[in-house]
Every structure is written in structure tokens, then in C-alpha cells.
């Protein structure tokens, strides 16, 4: 019999499942890929076959314009891969369609979380704690300084600033997939009923969210309206557009950014952000450590992010852990 867990191999370009000849979130094109969620650093185009949730496949289709070789697996559903490997997709609470993937083979259970968070998110079902032997967790915000405040507080900050400057607008930089739609949905939940203006690059993804049942109220494209129309309103754009020439068409924008990095003042200053909104779709330090405790796996494998600190925490709490050196995961904008 093979050594325990020898069927699952962390490689620089992704997690390789040997008996199924299949990769999880590979960072380059492969024959067979299991994809946790639609962010570009996890979902690359050009795979021979792609297995993901229907929403993730829709997102990939929007981005890469291809559905060939796509297999949809709903939450809670299991797909049998070759070599006797079962893959079950479980909500990860990160963005629309995001899933943890539970891999089972020879009585051994391994979970690959992809990215996840434990906070409520109106755009996707919450993370489900699932028992396993090996828990492969992300660590984007794996430092004890990261503690994301309740999102209601950040919404209040945003709406208060908007109300204080009726002649200006608040320009919110937010990751185009997930963060932007979550911010809009949370603004609606906070009772903000005004139209929200979008950068052109946001439009298709917002429509896709609407098609998947996320209500975002009235959305308007900046390009269709004048400076005067936008005064006193919220505008959402990708982070890259915040200090771009594009924003000159806006009425004296107050620059905001929705990101977990905004917790650190210098990070906000580096981005020229006047109104930092600490909103993340990743688990903060407290969520990461709580999740490791609750899942209570025999072993924790830590992927992209500040794995040193999480590794140290596991050591301090007598939990077995190792860091995986995966390449190609980017998290600067989240």
C-alpha cells in the first residue's frame, strides 16, 4: 500500500492529484483542472477539462469565452474522477460560486479551500466546516495585525462620508469579481437606495451576479452620465482605475478602497486612498486560526500569503502544519 496521502502532491503550479491526473487551481494550462473559484489567479483559461461550480464556470466563460470541456458540480455534489478519487464541492464563502474541494481517496480526506472567509456575504453561501485529514488553507491575511471589522461599520463610514460631501462623489476601488458586488449588495442592505455608478469594466460581472440572483438595485454606467448626475453618489471601479485618468470625469471624487490591506495605514497611503474601507473576501487572522481549530485536521498545509506567521501559530498550538510554496497567486488588490 502507498504511503498515506502520497496521492496528493503540492507542486509549484498547483496541487496535483496523481491517480486522477488532475490539478486543483493550476497556474498554467493543464489537461484536467478542478477550479475552486473564478479569480484569475485560481481560474486560468486554456485547460482541456475544467470542473467547477456552475457560477464559477459562468464567470470563466465570461472571461475566457470558452465552455468546452466544462463540467459543472453543484454545492454538496460529488464527482468521481479517475483513479478512484471523489471530489465534492463545498461552499467557501469567498465569492459567487467559490468552493472548497474535498478530495477523497483510499479512505483519506483532503480539503483544498481555495480562498475563503467566515463572514456573512449576501452574494454567496457561507463557508461550511467539514472534517478532513489534511486541510489545505490559504493565508492571504495570515498575520495577527489583520482583523477585519464588521462590514456594517465600514458601510457606515462610507455612507457618512458620502452624506458629508454632497457636492463630491465617493469612488470605491473594489476587485471587479466579488468585492464590487458584495460592496454594492451590502450598501443596499444598509438602506442605500440611490443609483450606484459603475466603471465600464464592472458591468458584465455585475450583470452575471444579477443573473445568479444577487439583487444590486439600480446600476448605471459612468460613461452614460454627466459629472452633475454623479455628484453625491457612489461610484465603483477596479482598484487600477482609482488614480487613473478615467477618474477625472468624476465630480471631485473622494478616493476609497475596499480591501483587507486597508487595515494598515501605509498601505492605504501608498494607494493614495483617502477613505480606507477594511473589507475583505479573505479570512482574517482570527478566522484563519478559528477555522484551523474547528476543522481540526491531522495536518494543515498553508498556501499563498503570509504562511510564516500561520505556521508559527500552528506550532504554538501544537498543530501539525507545513507551508506550500505555490507560485502565481496574487492578492494585492483584495
Amino acid at each position: 500500500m502507498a504511503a498515506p496521502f502520497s496521492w496528493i502532491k503540492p507542486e509549484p503550479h498547483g496541487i496535483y492529484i496523481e491517480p486522477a491526473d488532475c490539478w486543483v487551481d493550476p497556474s498554467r494550462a493543464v489537461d484536467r483542472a478542478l477550479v475552486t473559484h473564478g479569480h484569475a489567479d485560481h481560474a486560468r483559461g486554456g485547460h482541456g477539462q475544467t470542473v467547477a461550480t456552475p457560477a464559477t464556470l459562468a464567470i470563466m466563460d465570461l472571461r475566457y469565452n470558452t465552455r468546452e470541456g466544462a463540467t459543472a458540480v453543484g454545492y454538496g455534489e460529488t464527482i468521481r474522477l479517475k483513479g478512484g478519487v471523489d471530489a465534492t464541492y463545498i461552499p467557501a464563502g469567498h465569492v459567487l460560486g467559490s468552493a472548497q474541494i474535498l478530495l477523497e481517496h483510499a479512505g483519506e480526506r483532503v480539503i483544498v479551500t481555495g480562498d475563503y472567509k467566515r463572514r456573512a456575504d449576501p452574494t454567496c453561501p457561507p463557508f461550511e466546516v467539514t472534517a478532513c485529514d489534511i486541510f489545505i488553507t490559504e493565508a492571504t491575511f495570515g498575520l495577527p495585525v489583520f482583523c477585519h471589522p464588521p462590514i456594517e461599520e465600514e458601510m457606515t463610514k462610507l455612507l457618512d462620508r458620502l452624506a458629508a460631501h454632497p457636492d463630491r462623489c465617493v469612488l470605491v476601488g473594489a476587485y471587479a469579481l466579488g468585492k464590487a458586488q458584495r460592496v454594492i449588495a451590502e450598501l443596499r442592505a444598509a438602506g442605500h437606495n440611490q443609483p450606484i455608478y459603475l466603471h465600464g469594466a464592472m458591468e458584465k460581472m455585475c450583470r452575471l451576479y444579477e443573473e445568479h440572483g444577487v439583487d444590486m438595485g439600480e446600476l448605471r454606467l459612468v460613461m452614460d452620465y454627466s459629472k452633475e448626475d454623479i455628484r453625491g453618489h457612489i461610484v465603483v471601479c477596479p482598484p487600477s482605475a482609482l488614480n487613473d485618468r478615467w477618474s477625472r470625469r468624476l465630480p471631485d471624487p473622494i478616493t476609497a478602497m475596499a480591501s483587507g490591506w486597508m487595515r494598515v495605514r501605509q498601505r492605504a497611503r501608498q494607494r493614495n486612498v483617502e477613505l480606507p474601507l477594511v473589507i475583505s473576501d479573505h479570512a482574517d487572522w482570527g478566522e484563519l486560526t478559528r477555522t484551523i481549530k474547528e476543522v481540526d485536521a491531522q495536518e494543515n498545509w498553508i498556501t499563498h500569503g503570509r504562511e510564516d506567521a500561520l505556521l508559527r501559530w500552528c506550532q504554538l498550538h501544537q498543530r501539525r502544519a507545513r507551508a506550500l510554496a505555490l507560485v502565481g497567486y496574487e492578492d494585492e488588490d483584495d
Partner: protein
Amino acid sequence: MEEFAALIDALVYTRSRNEKLRLIAEYLRLTPDPDRGWALAALSDGLDFPAVKSSTIRNLLMDRVDPVLWTLSRDFVGDTAETASLLWPAPDTPPAPPSVSEAVELLTVMNRKSVVAELSKLLDRLDSSGRYALLKLATGGMRIGVSSRLAKTAFAQAFEVAVDDVEEYWHGLAPPYAELFAWAAEGDAPPDIENLPTFRPFMLAHPLEETVVDLADYAAEWKWDGIRVQLVRAGGETRLFSRSGDDISATFPEFLDILPVNAVVDGELLVRGNTQGGEAGGAASFNALQQRLGRKTVSNKMLKDYPAFIRLYDVLLLEGEDMRPRPWSERRGQLEALASRLPDSHFDISSVVEATDFEHLSQIREGSRDDAIEGLMLKRRDSPYIAGRRVGYWYKWKRDPLLVDCVLMYAQRGSGKRSSFFSDYTFGCWDGDPDLGADLLPVGKAYSGFTDADLKKLDRHVRSNTVNRFGPVRETDKSLVFEVAFDSVHESKRHKSGLAMRFPRIHRIRWDKPPHEADRIETLRTLIAG
């Protein structure tokens, strides 16, 4: 403390100078004494609590947080106070923040033994923003993009008083500046600083440019190439101040027991040599003076090898009398009389350059072979001594090459010999009056004109004053002035300023010059060739 913490946070995220002024002014108006005085001190010169150092905070945190986790966090965040404010465990009890003055009182009485317990108690009373503000206040330098001058300008704006008056009184007062607030906010009599050896703001000159003056109205002096200083004796004490008002007495102890009467004199600090102003009794180049600058203690050898003296320009106060309202010609007479009572070894007087008319003066200026002399100063004979730069009174008439004072804005690492050093500098001039909120606009880039020793200092400056990174480019806090020499300046669409310099090089690094005194775009524009 909540209001102060909110102010600090707002200032951190505000880039507009006008908005920063507004925020500080509003705080100063709405906050009671003595809280606002302590806050003003923290924002301007900084407060010092001997028991609370960066290392104190680190040790305090390492007791509560695993040292490895602390170190990883500190490296990522890049600021000890901020890391500590984020990592401090939230107490079970709701916050009961102290007032700023209560915090200052508590910090003042802490000593090396009590600091661990007492600072912890204080931190337990605050939320994350409050902890950040407290630790910043406790450890001095805020580094939040607020200069001392900006804080004073905000104070002046808050109470509609002249910032020059604030500067005049400032150096004679100590935090929490009760007399200053009583005067500005309550209309009380101004603070009495007559018997204190305090710095008085300098009178500054405008570039002459195309102006032609009548020598019947203006006297000419050489513009000496040293550093502008002010020597003050009052209340039994003598102090030497640099152009920015820093007390440099300890660096030049030879002047501390030398004025026979109470006085405030203005002059150029030079080192004996034969470059500036002839062989006998002349001065060495600026480089020789640099050997003496910035030292905390001075050896006898230094004093002997680089004997400093002051070439007197003006007298501000003399034996209890304020000479500043009097015309220059009268002050000059008083200065000459005073100079005759001072030892030649340490003083001479900046002589008046005699010329029959302006044309003659222009010939003298061009004919001067003395490279180290920067040019001429023209002083209106009836001008009072007024703090700052007032049009029409004093002019500086610099020699070729063209020189402007620019502010360092961005730096990039060099290559080859200079790889890993920040050696490529982009600098800018003010697009209007910096004290009214003008911005800096880049006007050029230079890679040369400094020594390797300068380069090391500049590199350190860039690394420790970075406010922003754009890939390989560092944006600095715009606190350093370069005197930039260049051959000509032309219109250019490449830069936002609309100007491009030909062959710009760093002529001198003005570590002593406050950035708001750098030149304006409009000054540079008047130098456009053809």
C-alpha cells in the same frame, strides 16, 4: 484622546495641504486647553518622554504577543507604533480613553521601571486608533505628512493671527503653549519673550530677475556662500540658530560667550579661508564649512582647523530695543557700531559693495572672479526687518549658472556604481504659494553634482522618508531642498509644470532649508531662455 486620534487618522489619509490645514485648525478651535496645546506640540516639534521609546513598545508587545509573530507583523507593517496599536489585545472592559493632557501627564511621570505597567494600563483604555495616536505622540516624530510649519500655519489660520507672529513667539514658549492660546484665542497680551534667548524668524529675499533698482534706494552686499545664522543673547544666555530655527549652539561653541550685550544679530556663518572675500580675512568655500555642520560635539582640532566666524548682515534686537521697525540704513549704522566692539577673530561685517549705478554694479557682479560668491544682495535702504519674504525690500541677484531651489519629490535607484543607491532625483517647484496650499510640480531630474558621501546621506534620506512606492520609484515626504543649477530652461509639454531644464545638476543640498521656502514655478518660468 478620541478627537486627537480621529485627527491623526484623518491627517494620515489626507494629501491636500489645504485640507490638512483645515483639519488641524478645526481641532485647535474646538478642543479645550491644555489638550490642544499638547496636540499642537505633538504635531509640530514633537514631544519627548524619556521612558517611552520604540524599544519600550517592542518589549511591551513581546510580552503579550509571541515574539516571532510580533517580528513578522512589524516587518510587514513597517511602523512600530502602528503594529503595536493593531496587535494590542482588546481589553475586556470598554474603552475609557484619557484626555490628551491626562495621557501626557501619565507619560511624563513614567520611568524605566514603571513604564511597562503604566503604559499597558493606558493602552488598555484605548481603541486601535487611540493606541496609534497615543504611541505616536509618546515616541515623538509623527511622520504623518505634517511639518512643524504646517502645524503653525494651521494654528494661525484657526485664530486668524499672523503666522509670523506665531513664529516670533513660538521659540520662547514651551508646550502646551498656554500663553500662545491665551493670546491668539482669548485676545490676551502677547507672550513676553524679550528676556529669552529665542529665535526670531529671518527676513528673506526675492530673486531680482529683470528688476532694475536705483542704488540711491538700494544698498548692495555680496551674497556669501555659507549658512545663514542668528546669534542671540538674552537673559544671560547665548544661542546660535540655523535658518530653520534649529539650535546649533552645541556645534559652534565658540560663539556662546562672545556677545558683550544683549542682542540678536543676523549673519552668514563661514569658515576662515581665502576663497570668499579676498585672501586676508576671507572665508573658505562652503565645503570647508560642511566639515563643521551637523556635529553634536566639536573637537579642539576641529575648532583649530576650521575656525568659524560670522559675517554680519543685520541687527534685530540691541540692548533691549527692537531694531526691526527701523530702516536698514539706521540698523546698518548700529550694526557697524556693534561690530567694532566684537572680536575680529569671530566676526566681520558684510561690506557694502560700492557702485556708481546699477549698470556699474552689474559689471562688478559679472567681473567678480570669486566663484564661491553666490551673487549680490540688494537691500532697500529704508526697509524694516520683516520676517519672511516681502516683495520690494530685499533682492538676491544670483550669478550664473541659473540656480533655483527645488524640493526632492521622487527618487529611483541608480545603476552601475550607484546601483542600490537612490541616486536619480526628480524635484519640483511650488505651483503658487506653498503656505496657501500650492502643490509641488516636477520640473526636472538630476543624477549628478554630489559627492559619494552626499549620495550615502541622500540615499538614507530617501529610504527613511519614503511615503509611497510606485514600482521602483520612491516618493519622498518632500522635506529636502536641492539648489539645482542648470544652463537654461524651456517650455516643454513633457512635464506637468510645462517646463524643462537643460543640464540640471544638484548644486547644493540644502539640508538647512525648509521646503516651503523653495522656489515657485513662476520664478522658474521667468528664466525661460529667449
